[in-house]
């Protein structure tokens, strides 16, 4: 993986995904290792994303690297009208690796073609956010002991949620049974369903959240955004139907864990937070270990 950019989850093979998960496990056991002392990491956030940026910067700092960069485009040369190409070419001179978030889809792929250093995509518009996918995989593997043969439910906005699409694609290598819970307006796109079918895997579609809870190992919750509905009345009709409350978990399997990419708004009520099945905040912590693993692997300080 040395010097390889990570733009899309498919840029790394399933074997490489597993290697990153293994490395993340090593960093979880020993998070502070000064193995990147000689390196400079640039975090270029052309749109703000505090959570993702802090997670990357925490990962880099824990490994001893120096971090440079900007946290939103208004404070950078972009405001003066500099092209993405010029920004990337220039910053390439100052660092060993670029972490980039940008509002345009495809910006990270383009940057990886221009840059002289590897790029890690921290989100390009609605397209890809591969480090989220890897930390989701890490969280599933850690809580279930393995990625193989699991029943995984995806709940909420399955149409526009990029984290859902990437995770579904990545899990297709592990004989997953997919349970897709969404309002009719926000069903998983047919291209993603086709991908599941092509791998000879099964998916079930539901509109009722309660129905799926007793059968699954993972409940992956997402937020339903009001602006996705052309008719506000349709939103009002469904918004309460995909809210997870603690009382709904009575018949859940003991190994069930609840995941959410965060930020949460109201789709999981706060009374779930104290339930041992709630895993979303630990999931966010796992993001640091995954990013440590990626930085170390791509810079070539671990194999």
């Amino acid at each position: 993986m040395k010097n390889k950019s990570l733009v899309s989850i498919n840029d790394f093979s399933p074997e490489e995904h597993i290697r990153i998960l293994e490395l993340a496990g090593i960093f979880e056991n020993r998070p502070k290792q000064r193995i990147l002392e000689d390196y400079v990491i640039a975090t270029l956030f052309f749109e703000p994303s505090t959570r993702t940026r802090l997670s990357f910067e925490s990962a880099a700092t824990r490994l001893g690297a120096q971090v440079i960069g900007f946290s939103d485009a208004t404070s950078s040369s972009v405001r003066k009208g500099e092209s993405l190409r010029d920004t990337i070419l220039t910053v390439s001179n100052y660092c060993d690796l670029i972490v980039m978030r940008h509002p345009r889809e495809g910006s990270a792929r383009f940057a990886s073609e221009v840059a002289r250093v590897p790029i890690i995509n921290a989100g390009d518009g609605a397209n890809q956010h591969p480090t989220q996918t890897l930390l989701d995989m890490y969280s599933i593997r850690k809580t279930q002991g393995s990625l193989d043969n699991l029943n995984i439910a995806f709940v909420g906005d399955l149409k526009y949620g990029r984290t859902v699409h990437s995770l579904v694609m990545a899990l297709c290598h592990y004989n997953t049974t997919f349970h897709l819970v969404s309002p009719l307006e926000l069903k998983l796109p047919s291209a993603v369903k086709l991908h599941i079918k092509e791998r000879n895997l099964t998916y079930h579609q539901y509109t009722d959240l309660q129905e799926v809870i007793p059968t699954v190992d993972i409940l992956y919750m997402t937020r339903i955004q009001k602006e996705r509905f052309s008719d506000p009345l349709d939103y009002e009709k469904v918004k309460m139907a995909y809210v997870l409350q603690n009382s709904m978990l009575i018949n859940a399997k003991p190994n069930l864990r609840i995941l959410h990419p965060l930020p949460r708004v109201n789709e999981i009520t706060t009374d779930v937070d104290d339930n041992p099945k709630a895993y979303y905040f630990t999931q966010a912590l796992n993001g640091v270990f995954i990013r440590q693993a990626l930085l170390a692997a791509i810079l070539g300080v671990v194999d």
Partner: protein
Amino acid sequence: MEKTELRKELKVSAIENGTVIDHIPSQSVFQVIRILNLTNYHNQLLTGTNLDSNKMGKKGIIKVSNKFFESDEINKIALVAPSATLIIIRNFQVVEKRKVEIPDQVEKIVKCFNPNCITNNEEVPTRFEVIDKKELKLRCHYCEKITARNTISFRE
């Protein structure tokens, strides 16, 4: 009968050497000229639109003197004129006739339909992988979205 056929053919006069692109949908003739970069061609270029055709009802035709295209180049036009026939002429004689084929990769000419794609917001040449030739579906190398027959448009 032969006479009428002859008269129809002669509406666009013959060329001595070069390439004839026949059976183009009439409305695509000027697009084909643009795709093949012939707008500033410094040699004879003859075109006709809305000519009678047994096969198509109405058709367009382009005759380019002293020009022989590489397959990669000519196949680009299959995106707008999948029905087109290529005829290579030497000494007023037809020496080769074949259909155009939709290529596996399409570069530069097609616009990504996604307004938020980097190629529509910065100076980036477009690149697509043709994932379905029959339905004409192109996957953008950058934003990974699918531009399909009903959303396809061309860069100026």
